[in-house]
């Protein structure tokens, strides 16, 4: 569809709602990457993240009639993603494995520049590990607030809490992450 590229997310989703299902393809192309990135970090499980992304888009079709005229597509998408992730965590009672060595390795290897210093990738691995050790709700709000182009009003909508509460929780989560991160780095030094 040549015109799809010119339409906003909202227009595309309204088209999907009105039966033009193919328009979801363009929304998928625009959003599946960041959504996957968010879910991969949130679950700590890349395969699960792929499954959840798929489920999110499936639910967009299934619940397309509930998309509102005044809807905000991105916020709606993360709202669905949140539900799907909760289903995932319910099935996998335990929190994601914090220190899967292969995962740390993957992050250590994922250096953007060959000239990066080894220390930087170590830090990254520690931070990734700290993120996985964070309480699930803390990780969720922190990721939503950092990685996505969402306002705190939208985040509050996604999390179904007040804007003030969302702000406070995000900041508290950052402090928690900082503490774990520095603790891990300290353990490495001793």
């Amino acid at each position, binding site marked *: 569809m040549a015109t799809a590229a010119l339409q906003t997310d909202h227009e595309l989703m309204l088209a999907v709602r009105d039966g033009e299902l193919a328009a979801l*393809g363009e929304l*998928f192309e625009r959003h*599946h*990457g960041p959504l996957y990135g968010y879910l*991969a970090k949130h679950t700590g499980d890349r395969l699960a993240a792929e499954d959840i992304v*798929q489920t999110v888009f499936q639910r967009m079709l299934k619940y397309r009639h509930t998309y509102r005229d005044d809807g905000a597509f991105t916020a709606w998408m993360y709202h669905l993603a949140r539900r799907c992730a909760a289903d995932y965590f319910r099935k996998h009672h335990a929190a994601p494995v914090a220190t899967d060595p292969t995962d740390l390795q993957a992050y250590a290897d994922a250096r953007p520049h060959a000239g990066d210093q080894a220390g930087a990738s170590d830090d990254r691995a520690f*931070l990734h590990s700290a*993120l996985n050790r964070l309480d699930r709700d803390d990780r969720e709000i922190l990721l939503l607030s950092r990685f996505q182009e969402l306002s705190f009003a939208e985040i509050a909508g996604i999390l179904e809490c007040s804007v003030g509460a969302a*702000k406070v929780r995000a900041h508290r989560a950052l402090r928690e992450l900082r503490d774990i991160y520095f603790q891990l780095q300290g353990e490495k030094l001793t």
Partner: protein
Amino acid sequence: MNCIQARDRFAELLDQRLDGPVSGEVRLHLAACPDCQRDFVSLRDTLAQLDALPAAKPGPRLRANFYAMLEDEQRSAAAPARASAPSRRHTPRWRWILSPLAACGLLALSFVAGQRSAPVATPVTVPVDAATQHELADLRKKVDSMGQLVGYSLLQRQPANERLKGILATQDLAAPGDRVLTQLISALALDPSTNVRLSALEALYPYADQEVVRAGVLASLTREQSPLVQVSMIDFLVAARDREAAPTLQQLVRADKVDRSVRDAAKRALVQL
């Protein structure tokens, strides 16, 4: 402004979305307080690290699965036009169940739908329309070409004991969704481990009253290689009082290549049904 008040406001310095009128006061305190400076810098560094974490990239499977699902949904959205055809009696329910399957790359289970619809259509005098026939043939073809692939992808994902754990976990669910049932049926039909297949069958017992579950077991029965699992499946169908199993059971009784114990079980089942 004291340290506690100042630190509560650091969020506003760290995130321009939150920039409020108070941040001037916070800055003043920060300039004069080394403790708060340390706190602030460590938070800022943590955030910088967090923002610098590389974003994981999805594999090619995701896009392929998405478009398979979209196509499937588009077809089923177009389907009501022919919904009156008797052979499509089960289709809406199946579609619903099968779409998550496509999601898992397990298109093969569409086979179940094909198998199930066909015998239902035969006793009815109205002939199956060409489009439906074509679709069923297409589904069967997909199964044949994908059978190996599916087994492979299941194998790849997790070791057998992990797959088993996944199945056992479903037994804790009070009301498993269609997705869980789909996974159990997939495991029953496709998992390379006899143990996993048997556990999946056991996990399906509480849901034997659902047509989709009985149909899944029945479709898996003819594909199953292990006599032990086959006999267990037959027991399942008897327990579920699935009359629609009769034609398949008769086929098993007559098939020479089928293990003796399976044929006996099928014979007994036919009497009980």
